[in-house]
């Protein structure tokens, strides 16, 4: 079995995590493509801002709806792959619409000028929306495999902690505090000495208007909390299922690989399942190349045996040879340290966790053909027997 097959085989949900700039979106698309090529009904879910998946799939617009991706141009099926982009604002709107106790509260929340901030920018809001949508899609039963490309974070671990932080931020003590203050401020003079001090001091920074309006918003918003908690529990249960696997997407840089280690520990602590590691943009080695350590003269001699080389003079051939060697050395230097770091990680993670290096390509991947090329390169990696 190839590493890629192993990564996909046991999963019906793959959560792709990793820090920014490691090719998370592209890799999610390739994983989805491979499963879809093998006939599994697959959905790739990505996060809106940069329209990244749309870029990767070479289609102009991808919206909140589920769109089929036709793979016939690369010899695949027409209908097994679908993609959707998570529009944070809209996903959160849907949560509010579903969970608001009555239309008046719903409108009060959606119409409040604080709402946009709460639904998109408050720590954890994006992850909450993403998990919620994932949960819905998985439970719909329309797909054999759902791949979630997680929101861009500077740290892969953020995704696991985010819902917790959101709840923490919205702890009911804050809401009670605001509601109390707001109510008593309405009836001037009824504030106790302590509360009055707090109120006066805070409003020196925020102004009174912000205070009362935010209080009002929180009062309405708090009617959703019980629903949030319930859904978070449901999503947590989905994440813990053995068929839900986390795939770490990494670059071959030592510090990014270090993060993968840390992430694996966190998954183990939380009882979640690691499906594998994809290491993107790995440089190819030259140390086994007989010319790598050769003198420029030797390489120039070898070039000289080629047809057409006679058109170039010896000085030209030598200059080319020197540059070729310098180029190979530069790549080899990176390749060696990357290969060592990846091998160490693979040994440490053991046989159950495929670690799949993907070469750096001569050009970036942002078309269906490019994704298929990357897919084929990934499909070549075999799971090593033994450690």
């Amino acid at each position, binding site marked *: 079995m190839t590493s890629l097959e192993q990564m996909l085989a046991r999963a019906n949900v793959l959560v792709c995590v990793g820090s*920014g700039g490691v090719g998370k979106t592209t890799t999610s698309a390739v994983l989805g493509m491979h499963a879809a090529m093998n006939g599994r009904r697959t959905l790739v879910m990505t996060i809106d*801002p940069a329209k990244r998946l749309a870029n990767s799939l070479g289609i102009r617009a991808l919206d909140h709806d589920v769109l089929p991706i036709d793979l016939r141009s690369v010899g695949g099926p027409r209908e097994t792959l679908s993609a959707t982009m998570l529009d944070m604002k809209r996903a959160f709107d849907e949560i509010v619409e579903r969970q608001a106790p009555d239309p008046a509260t719903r409108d009060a929340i959606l119409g409040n000028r604080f709402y946009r901030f709460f639904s998109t920018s408050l720590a954890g809001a994006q992850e909450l929306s993403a998990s919620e949508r994932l949960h819905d899609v998985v439970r719909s039963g329309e797909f054999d495999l759902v791949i979630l490309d997680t929101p861009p974070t500077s740290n892969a671990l953020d995704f696991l902690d985010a819902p917790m932080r959101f709840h923490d*931020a919205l702890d009911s003590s804050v809401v009670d505090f605001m509601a109390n203050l707001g109510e008593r401020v309405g009836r001037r003079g009824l504030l106790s000495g302590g509360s009055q001090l707090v109120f006066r001091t805070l409003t*020196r920074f925020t102004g009174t208007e912000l205070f009362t309006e935010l209080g009002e918003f929180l009062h309405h918003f708090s009617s959703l909390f019980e629903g949030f908690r319930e859904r978070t529990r449901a999503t947590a249960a989905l994440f813990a299922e053995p068929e839900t696997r986390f795939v770490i997407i990494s670059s071959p840089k030592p510090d990014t690989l270090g993060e993968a280690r840390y992430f694996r520990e966190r998954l183990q602590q939380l009882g979640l399942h690691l499906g594998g590691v994809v290491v993107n943009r790995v440089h190819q080695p030259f140390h086994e190349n007989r010319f790598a350590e050769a003198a420029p003269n030797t*390489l120039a001699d070898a070039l000289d045996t080629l047809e057409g080389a006679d058109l170039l003079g010896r000085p030209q051939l030598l200059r080319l040879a020197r540059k070729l060697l310098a180029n190979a050395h530069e790549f080899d230097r990176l390749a060696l340290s*990357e290969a060592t770091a990846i091998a160490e990680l693979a040994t440490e993670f053991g046989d159950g966790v495929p670690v799949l290096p993907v070469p750096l390509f001569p050009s970036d991947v942002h078309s269906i053909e490019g994704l298929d090329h990357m897919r084929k390169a990934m499909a070549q990696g075999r799971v090593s027997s033994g450690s």
Partner: protein
Amino acid sequence: MSTSRNRLLDHRFIINTGKGGVGKTTLSVAMAMAMARAGRRVLLFQFNVHDRVGPIFGKPPVGPEIVELAPRLFAVNTTPPDAMREYVLMTLRVRLLYRAVFENRTVARFLRMIPGLPELVMLGKAYYHEGESADGRPRFDAVILDAPATGHGMFLLQIPRVISDAVADGPMVGEAHRMAELLRDRQRTRINLITLTEEMPVNETLEYQRRLREELDIEPGGIIANSVYPTPFSATEVRQLRDLRDTLRIRTNNNHDSGERDLSSMLEAALFRDARCAMQKGYLDRLEQESGAPVIRIHHRFEPTLDAAALEFIATELSSGGSTS
């Protein structure tokens, strides 16, 4: 100090911004090194990160206290609560009152919910250090901000949201206006958009620049394209290499000599390098055309990890205003 040749390091307040993974921290450190080397006292300002900068200088990770990592090179890693505390203490001047009000857990949580406030107080702290004096002269000659990559790198855009979305009046609005003014002050402030020469970072950089112009009326000082491959092969050489590769291909189809395979992979590596260079050139051209801003190039380094020595190279590159090839 100031020369027209290199405006990159002339400002007192430098904000390095861009999406995650483009090398903001690396370039910020290298900039600080270049300035410190030139005799300026410089403060590297980070936002609530898992610090990697201290260890580069053989020191512990940088925390919320200002530390001197190398001669004239200072660093701090602030958090919203730290910045809030300093800001409030400066305004209130009563420590007891601060403790009573702001150290209350509920109040602290409430403050986190005010849109833009954490960004505002952290930026405020950075500007405070820019104007700070010690012994009758400025404490620092320059402050370099390694802006957070959160919110899709749109950190600065959070500031006006305070005004437009959330707060109608009060001191925060005044502060937000003051910050927006400082960001627009091109004598003091320079905003660098840092990017890689790849599809998505380039798209996002252009989008960010457009939004800075439209929403904040800010003209970034320039774009820094990081990690650009040096191009060792001339166009003529690339043609020669391609011809040689093609004749070799015809030959190796008939016999599988490992020597020829090795020779072929040397040639392929060169052409691979050239393909990546050409791709990067395309993105550099696009950045220049669509941004209308100067694009500074910093070369890719082939060291596996960027240690102090590698950063010195980048610092030198920055001192001379980047590569212009």
